[in-house]
């Protein structure tokens, strides 16, 4: 909220009122210690980072992660084969639209994102600044 200047130019022109107060109160008669601190600079993330975060959020939500957290279904279902007695896994929760297993949700979310990313790759293939190999990879 308060944009304060770095330590180097702090002496002459700081915009920070607390710095001015500190200059007067203890540090007019005490010598300030020599510190080699640098204020962290705040830079906006690149668009690609933001997009990756958005895509990750989309993947998690569309996989039904909130349902998984609240209802806590099993990771994968299982049935018992009536003849042999062996336990076989069941991937899709049968019979209901409003229920899922965790792995089923994650794989379907992955499919959704894959479809979208495919269209993105097609668009990336047209960009002129990519390396040749990346373009070939994208077209393939």
């Amino acid at each position: 909220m308060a944009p304060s200047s770095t330590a180097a130019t702090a002496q002459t022109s700081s915009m920070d009122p607390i710095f001015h107060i500190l200059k007067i109160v203890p540090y007019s008669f005490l010598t300030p210690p020599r510190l080699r601190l640098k204020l962290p600079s705040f830079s906006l993330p690149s668009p690609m980072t933001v997009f990756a975060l958005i895509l990750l959020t989309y993947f998690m939500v569309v996989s039904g992660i909130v349902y998984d957290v609240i209802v806590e279904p099993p990771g994968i279902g299982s049935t018992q084969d009536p003849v042999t007695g062996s336990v076989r896994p069941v991937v899709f929760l049968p019979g209901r639209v409003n229920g899922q297993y965790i792995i089923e949700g994650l794989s379907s979310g992955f499919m959704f994102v894959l479809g979208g990313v495919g269209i993105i790759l097609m668009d990336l293939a047209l960009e002129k600044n990519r390396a040749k190999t990346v373009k070939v990879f994208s077209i393939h």
Partner: protein
Amino acid sequence: MAGPPEQAPAPGLRYAFGSVLSFFILLLIGVFAFSIRLFSVIKYESVIHEFDPYFNYRVTQFLTKNGIYDFWNWFDDRTWYPLGRVIGGTVYPGLTLTAGTIWWLLNSLNIPLSVETVCVFTAPIFSAFAAWATYLLTKEVKGAGAGLTAAALLAMVPSYISRSVAGSYDNEAVAIFALIFTFYLYIKTLNTGSLFYATLNAIAYFYMVCSWGGYTFIINLIPMHALLCIVTGRYSSRLYVAYAPLVVLGTLLAALVPVVGFNAVMTSEHFASFLVFIIIHVVALVDYIKGSLSPKMFKVAVTLVVSVGLAVCFAVVAVLVALVASSPTMGWSGRSLSLLDPTYASKYIPIIASVSEHQPPTWPSYFMDINVLAFLVPAGIIACFLPLSDASSFVVLYIVTSVYFSGVMVRLMLVLAPAACIMSGIALSEAFDVFTRSIKFQLPGLSGNSEVNAGDGSSSTVVAQNDAAKTDKREDTLKDRPSRKNKKKEKEKEHVEKAPVKSKVKRLLVLPLEASVVALLLIVLLGAFYVVHCVWAAAEAYSAPSIVLTSHSHDGLHVFDDFREAYAWLSHNTDVDDKVASWWDYGYQTTAMANRTVIVDNNTWNNTHIATVGTAMSSPEKAAWEIFNSLDVKYVLVVFGGLVGYPSDDINKFLWMVRIGGGVFPHIKEPDYLRDGQYRIDSQATPTMLNCLMYKLSYYRFVETDGKAFDRVRRTEIGKKYFKLTHFDEVFTTHHWMVRIYKLRPPKNRIRGKTKKPKSKGSSTTSSKRGGTRKKNPWH
């Protein structure tokens, strides 16, 4: 759509043709949006669906009969007996006022449509308007092509159809149109900086506040976007004009709506807008001062302002914290809090957790409701990033927030639907652009024109330096494109030979021809699958009116009209002032169709009252009779699906009666009704369960139907088959035993056995002796 400026009449003709074509397309989209929602009217009849729309219908009837002043001041005593409900202050009036206005307008033109018809068809009409609003919004973000695609997608998206089908007369039918229109006006103001659109934006926001509780989404999303613009360095005077008038005018207008009232300035849901209001003023001031001061003076001024600002900020934050901390939910309403913390509702408010619409969605819900759009959304997000403008950053923020909220509650998929349509419209439009451009510039007949047209803003790039190297690279890339057939290689070699001759300077960014044709066909096929799914969803999944049920059996179609049968019986065979008790799901329908006073209804505003009814249903007969008698109840209505296999009956809802009742009255303990953690009604059921009122009222004389009392929903024979009712009389059971109505027996005149007073044994003889000489106190 941008024509080349080479010849004067050709671009004018192209423009004219383009706008006429887009006008007709929009008209067709509107007609399509209207007609796809008419399936239930065709399959069943023009009837109001579900539960909530019956309340809205009753309110609209009152409005059309009594006028608007009586509507504002209406106190409804036919519901929540004996508490009543202030309708004027607890109802979002937008929907009823809209339908009432339409009815009044039509009637003044002497078109005598009944109120019911107007109510049934309000939703399809407003969905056509919503599709047009989506066109306008997407046109502001990306252009007319994307706008038309987005409008076409919104006209059929199943999530929106589910809440706006003909007969679903609920707030969302109008509110989604208001939402999209408000966003359109905000973006328009942002793009043009005009105060006219800012005022229209405030008025559209007012309409949204009137219509739906979801208006808090707008008043939190727009400040978030304004903050995002400021942080990413996109502050401009247009942003100020778009944001500040909205907050001031919008809050004032929102406070005019009686439901909102002072909540518009006191609840936490609105604080974000005020905070960003302050921030944007600070930024505007800094911007202004920076331009008129020298750098040193500027720093001094900023120091002064920051120190004053810090002091003021501490004071304001202290006040806010005191205000917010004084309420147990920190100022947020229960529903909003359950959005931010999905586990909140199940822990503290079982009623909110019990509504099936408030469950989190699973991935099949996504595929069912937005279908193919789920794939296209990420592509649309990227298309919004290249290039990033104010409007496209808004749409990205909209989709991210709505995806999160839809992940928490199924009901909010409705807010995701317009965002998904906009994104997918942008993605599809860009994809079509790329493919048709690839085809257009590579078709053999047209390659002669390709060079001339390539200079006019399509995807070619002008390479200024080092043409030879660049053309070499282009030749390489053209050759490297996957060409498994020899024909393709030859064609590319032709292009490579032709191209360096014709356009050394310009380079086309195109995909191979066959690939683009195939891809174009595949995208059209994708759209076809989407349309097929939407029409199927509209026809089969979302058109059920819930008041009439059908089932297909080997001898044709069976229609179960039991609900209306029961309400009609009630309305014809009971007194006007008789009170009917049932579970809260049926309250609205009972008041609207049977015209009788109910104890609890779907508004669920009083948890204790609902818990009282739930306790009565879970108690044995005598205790239940006492509770109902104290509420002046005459009739009890129970829904039972065991004979026909209707799964949403009261026995399946019984666990909520126990939980909600047990939450308020501790003598109802849930483990008393559970055997091995499950509610059972067969021979393994607990004795408490077999004795409770709900069991008895549902299964009374059930054994007479098939001799074995087999419950088709629970798929088992019931535990106690032969029993008599001691405090209730059965007065009506519908044709398929789906609704059963019981009457409370009047209290007995004589009480057998000991009376209540323990000292009456001794004093009865003495008082009879002294009866004449001593005045009896009538209150003892």
